């Protein structure tokens, strides 16, 4: 059985230092979008996860190195056949409505995720057959088949435990007044204006929470978000622009916390999804390789993002433990790209319909890609498309290349399986290879990092030569905040956790 002593130590340290009684502190955070419904079962957006990080604790969490650490759970143990996972729960945890968080509550929450109409957590918990509340502090998950990414799934919304009483009473309106077991409780929400939370006095780790009130304000314009921070109308903003970093760093009143994202930015190629994919670009992997070689990833990040983003060539960034260093980021090689095109019998210029979701950053990257690939013999026709429309176009295969971002998941499975497994939900490129399918499944069943990485290595060898995604770079998640905020720690998922943070007046 795995035991985690970290949290206990942190609690003890917090108790020793004590928290001085000071004037009420309010932290105002500028969000890049307006979050969707605040119900962990029905929520879909990245920005919503930022609010949940203060509102709803999960069974597990991650640390600086993407290791899984306990939160509402204390430990977990997987049976030798990998089909039973026993989770020990933290005692003395209360929900915001005063109800006790116990095995029954965990069972009810997970079952709600698995069965509620319209639940977006169903696929994440698809491996779970049934849940058993063994005793008040133990739950057992019976799986259909061994599934290594399960615990990682429980570090996100699928692992959020809500008050069963409140969930039962409010049904699908739970998100209008969410009751969880996080450090802050819900006060009010005015759509598109603010979400207000206040410190939950009975939080299990209350000694580490030094902020009394949190106000989230959606401000979509990044310039205005930054102006609010500079003028003191906000104390923190998320997803500041990389191009604004020099300005933020130069301001003594501000501090910045950055971390490479768990996801990636790439170009999906239609290699058989539809008729549009039946061109030289989609049919011959050498042409995609030529396209990839024509791109200078380093230059892309330098020109568009002041060199702050990380060039990449895989579904995880080079500093992720699952990165395959055997396949480094390729250097630009136009001559070789031309050779490959020649070998594939392509007459240049080869016209490509490149669908790009409409936002200034992706448009700029698309233009750089267009110029670079043009030198190798590609005639890229950029088709800027409104985002919701582009999703539909991609779903129906009406594109040859599609600029697609993925916010990333803690477990690498979340970045690769649904995009490359035959007929998987987001396999927009239409890629299919029985061996790759086998290796991706293997990585799901193996337990150790080394074994899983070995399975991914085989998959990477194939996917990086004939796959349908050309990976470009990994964004830096940039959180800028007032210099009066001390003790803020940025974790790799880019979310905002306020445990340990203090706001000086």
């Amino acid at each position, binding site marked *: 059985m795995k035991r985690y002593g970290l949290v206990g130590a942190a609690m003890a340290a917090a108790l020793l230092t004590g928290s001085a009684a000071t004037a009420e502190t309010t932290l105002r955070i500028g969000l890049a979008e*307006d979050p*969707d*419904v605040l*119900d962990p079962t*029905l929520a*879909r*957006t*990245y920005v919503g996860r930022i609010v949940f990080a203060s509102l709803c604790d999960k069974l597990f969490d991650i640390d600086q190195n993407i290791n899984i650490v306990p939160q509402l759970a204390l430990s977990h143990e997987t049976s030798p056949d990998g089909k039973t996972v026993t989770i020990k729960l933290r005692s003395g945890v209360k929900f915001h409505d005063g109800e006790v968080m116990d095995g029954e509550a965990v069972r009810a929450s997970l079952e709600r995720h698995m069965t509620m*109409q*319209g*639940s*977006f957590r*169903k*696929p994440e918990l698809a491996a779970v057959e049934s849940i058993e509340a063994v005793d008040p502090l133990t739950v057992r998950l019976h799986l259909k088949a061994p599934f290594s990414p399960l615990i990682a799934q429980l570090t996100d919304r699928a692992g959020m435990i809500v008050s069963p009483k409140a969930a039962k009473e409010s049904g*699908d*309106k739970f*998100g*209008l007044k969410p009751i969880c077991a996080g450090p802050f409780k819900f006060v009010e929400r*005015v*759509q*598109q*204006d*603010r979400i207000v939370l206040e410190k939950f006095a009975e939080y299990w780790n209350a000694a580490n929470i030094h902020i009394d009130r949190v106000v989230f*304000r*959606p*401000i*979509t*314009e990044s*310039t*205005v978000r930054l*102006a*609010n921070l*500079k*003028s*003191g*109308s906000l104390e923190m903003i998320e997803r500041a622009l990389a191009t604004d970093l020099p300005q933020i760093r130069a301001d003594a009143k501000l501090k910045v916390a950055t971390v490479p994202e768990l996801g990636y930015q790439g170009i999906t190629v239609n290699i058989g999804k539809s008729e549009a994919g039946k061109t030289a670009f989609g049919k011959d992997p050498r042409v995609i390789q030529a396209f990839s070689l024509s791109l200078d990833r380093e230059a892309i990040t330098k020109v568009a993002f002041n060199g702050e983003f990380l060039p990449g060539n895989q579904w995880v960034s080079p500093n992720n433990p699952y990165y395959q260093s055997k396949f480094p980021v390729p250097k630009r090689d136009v001559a070789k790209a031309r050779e490959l095109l020649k070998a594939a019998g392509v007459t240049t210029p080869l016209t490509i319909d490149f669908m790009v979701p409409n936002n200034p950053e992706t448009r700029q990257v698309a233009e750089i890609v267009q110029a670079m690939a043009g030198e190798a013999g590609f005639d890229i026709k950029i088709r800027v498309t*409104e*985002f*919701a*429309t582009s*999703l*539909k*176009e991609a*779903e129906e295969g009406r594109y040859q290349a599609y600029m697609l971002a*993925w*916010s990333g998941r803690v477990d690498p499975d979340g970045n690769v399986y649904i995009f490359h497994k035959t007929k998987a*939900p*987001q396999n927009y490129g239409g890629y299919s290879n029985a061996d790759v399918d086998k290796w991706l499944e293997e990585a799901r069943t193996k337990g150790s990092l080394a074994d899983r990485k070995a399975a991914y290595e085989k998959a990477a060898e194939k996917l990086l030569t004939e796959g349908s995604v050309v990976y470009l770079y990994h964004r830096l998640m940039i959180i800028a905040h007032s210099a009066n905020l001390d003790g803020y720690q940025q974790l790799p998922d880019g979310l905002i956790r306020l445990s340990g943070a203090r706001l000086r007046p």
Partner: protein
Amino acid sequence: MLRFLGRRLLQLVPTLFFVSVIIFGLQQLLPGDPALAMAGEERDPAVLEQVRKQYRLDQPLHVQYLYWVGGVLSGNLGESMRLKEPVITLITQKFPVTLQLALMAIAFSLTIGVTAGVISAVKRDTAVDYAVNVIALWGISTPNFWLGIMLIFLFAVHLNWLPASGYVGFLDDPWMSLKTTLLPAFVLGNSFAAVLMRHTRSAMLQAMGSDYVRTARAKGLAERRVVLKHALRNALTPVVTLGALELGTLLSGAVLTEQVFSIPGFGKLIVDSVFNRDYAVVQGVTLITATTYILLNLVADVAYVLINPRLRS
């Protein structure tokens, strides 16, 4: 009079029916799939299917329309797919915000536009007239988006006099509410003030050249009284009509200004809902706005009839 009113009210029924069909129909022309747009990154086919079923997106269009109209007739405008909140709640939350912003913007533009127009007409062909004209031209041609951001930098970041963005309800904190809406109302009223100035100027010039102004002057009235009481009163009629029309437009939301200043009004609600394909919200807000327009028209018609009995026949 009652017959006239009855006839006009009866005419409302086919008009509103037609409006509802147009709103519903136009929305269906939007490319994209609401379930897919709603799912964001969580695009699992089984879940998407369930969402389509839950919101009847899998039903034929006429069935979806009937469900919607049926709901509207029983006072239910539906529920936001994205926020799970009743559309009527969203509308009642946003309307006071949009109303306050619209009234303040109109007040700004009337004050600035009419004053500048009068000064410009009185000082015709002088340096003052040219200066006012140049400022008006600048006002018309300055994009709201740019002006908004510049004002934020000046008044919020550098001078720290006003909040950079956001909104506080008038009933919650009147002073703070005025502070949060001052810049957006100015930006919104700015270009319209310029239009009003041009109209006031030309109407004033016309009035100043008319016989009754000459008579007033001949009677020995003070110039100030001639301008303000005789010329301006007559010149104001087209200006007031213009102002009323603009108020109607502003009440349907000012998309760009609300976006820049993060004002949670109708404009922002509609834009977010269109991008997220949150059909019920788009339909609800558009229907309410259109109905308000139609009713205001009716009120105007009734007012005309009350003023001018010849129209009753």
